[in-house]
């Protein structure tokens, strides 16, 4: 039986987003998964079919941590893997991959003086130069590390309410991508009313406890008996249990959001600043994302914002709450994807879009329900280019996207060296 190792040394959300790759490999052989030691309990819950290898990659490289990695490497030396999928463009994971024959390693390989990338990874890096046009979800990026990955529709269950009330993720790791607490309070209050006053669970780590207290102060007193503050109180199994079966999950772009999508919980996500639905949106059918779309976005979280996070302004408007109530109404009524596309949705303020997630042959493919998308034609062109490169059909030939003038896009998408050198070359 073939044996595969996947190294995913990034954090919570990235681990969940490796699912398509892992499931694709699980159908072909024995899957081993190397993750940071702190994530192994979560990995065990998410991917029970995988044999786990705990790494010490986050935090300080203390003596104990280095010893752990040395023991893992010693174990790997004695194992034969048919392929090793290194998901991270990282010196640390590349160094770990030095125990394997270079041609065994997929994605990112160690090289003298650094890390080399596969043609697919290089292309994705090129796409990230113009993020507003890039149409590739991270789940599909990693999924296509494997030849012919599984059908994207079979990765996560379609979103469906489970009768366990409303979940609220208080904030993401990057604070700029989260709704300010007063805005979040209005969103929660509206959702509470639209869902008929269900139980509400506040979710987050210990770092979000102050935000939870602040949110509770902003909520109407009559709501409080229904609200359970779980921030800082859940380990990984308890978190998964708290998210399972929710009717809806209100969240910024977070690991908990990806966990919700993994479980088929209807996600109501608010993406602003550096968060970009087309890259890291919830994976699966039937989730909803309100995406801000200023000309300066999506931005780099690490760079200071010269506009005082003005992209968040449309999220403070009353139109957002009307839109939210309409979406919750359709979730309760079980409106189909086609029905959602045909429905007339409440208007949104300028700079805000409402998307419903869906899938095509390539993977995640959201539909715009409300708002304007100035980059739609270009994004379709890029998506068709990606589909053709993967020998997939994203949409019928001769469509509007195929007819788009591409003089501006082609030099970006096609690199001379890609066709001047033999395929499969890492550099």
């Amino acid at each position, binding site marked *: 039986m073939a044996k595969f190792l996947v190294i995913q040394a990034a954090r919570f959300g990235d681990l969940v987003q490796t699912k398509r790759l892992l499931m694709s490999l699980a159908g072909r052989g024995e899957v081993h998964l190397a993750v940071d030691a702190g994530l192994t309990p979560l990995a065990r819950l998410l991917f029970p079919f995988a044999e786990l290898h705990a790494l010490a990659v986050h935090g300080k490289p203390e003596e104990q941590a280095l010893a752990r990695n040395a023991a893992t490497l010693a174990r790997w030396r004695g194992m034969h893997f048919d392929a090793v999928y290194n998901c991270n463009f990282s010196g640390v994971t590349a160094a770990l991959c030095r125990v394997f024959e270079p041609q065994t390693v997929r994605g990112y390989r160690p090289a003298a003086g650094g890390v080399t990338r596969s043609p697919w990874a290089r292309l994705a890096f090129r796409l990230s130069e113009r993020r507003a046009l890039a149409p590739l979800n991270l789940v599909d990026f990693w999924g296509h590390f494997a030849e012919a990955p599984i059908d994207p529709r079979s990765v996560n269950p379609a979103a469906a309410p489970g009768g366990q009330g409303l979940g609220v993720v208080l904030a993401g790791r990057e604070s700029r991508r989260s709704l300010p607490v007063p805005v979040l309070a209005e969103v929660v209050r509206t959702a509470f009313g639209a869902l008929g006053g269900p139980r509400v669970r506040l979710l987050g780590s210990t770092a979000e406890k102050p935000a939870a207290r602040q949110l509770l102060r902003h909520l109407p007193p009559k709501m409080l008996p229904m609200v359970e503050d779980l921030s800082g109180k859940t380990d990984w199994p308890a978190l998964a249990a708290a998210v399972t079966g929710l009717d809806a999950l209100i969240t910024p772009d977070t690991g908990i959001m990806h966990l919700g999508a993994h479980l088929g919980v209807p996600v109501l996500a608010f993406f602003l600043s550096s968060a970009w639905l087309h890259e890291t949106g919830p994976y699966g059918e039937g989730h909803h994302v309100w995406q801000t779309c200023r000309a300066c976005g999506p931005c780099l979280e690490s760079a200071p914002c010269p506009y005082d996070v003005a992209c968040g302004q449309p999220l403070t408007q009353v139109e957002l709450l009307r839109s939210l109530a309409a979406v919750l109404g359709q979730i309760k009524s079980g409106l189909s994807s086609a029905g959602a596309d045909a429905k007339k949705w409440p208007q949104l303020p300028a700079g805000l879009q409402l998307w419903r997630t869906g899938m095509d042959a390539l993977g995640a493919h959201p539909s715009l329900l409300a708002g304007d998308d100035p980059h739609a034609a270009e994004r379709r062109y890029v998506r068709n280019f990606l589909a053709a*490169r993967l*020998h997939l059909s994203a949409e019928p030939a001769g469509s509007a996207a195929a007819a788009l003038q591409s003089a501006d896009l082609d030099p970006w998408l096609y690199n001379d060296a890609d066709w*001047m050198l033999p*395929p499969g070359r890492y550099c």
Partner: protein
Amino acid sequence: MPAAPLRILVVLPMYGGSLPIGRYCASALGALGHSVRVFEAPLLHAGFTGLRGLGLAPAQTAQLENSFLQVVSQAVWAQVQEQEPHLVLAMAQAPLGRSLLQRLRPGGRAHGHVVCGRPRNI
């Protein structure tokens, strides 16, 4: 002997599976009576691979390799100018950059681009 023998430039890749195919094509076209010249990209292969032996970081190496490929592409153009071929037959992975392809197109100089590789791997 064809009624109108053509001047044909066969552009070989520096290395890879298309290289022997390119040589077969050149030989066959010559046997048909055409005037065939071959762009011997393999002569430059050692210089190209030598860049990887310099011990530079991958990003710098990739940049130098791209620059090297442009030089090779210019060498193809020099040969085109000298021979003025009716047809440029480029094998898969032949060192023809975008700007050279554009230069070949509008001047009325016919060219064919034979792709033998698997596009999904580019």
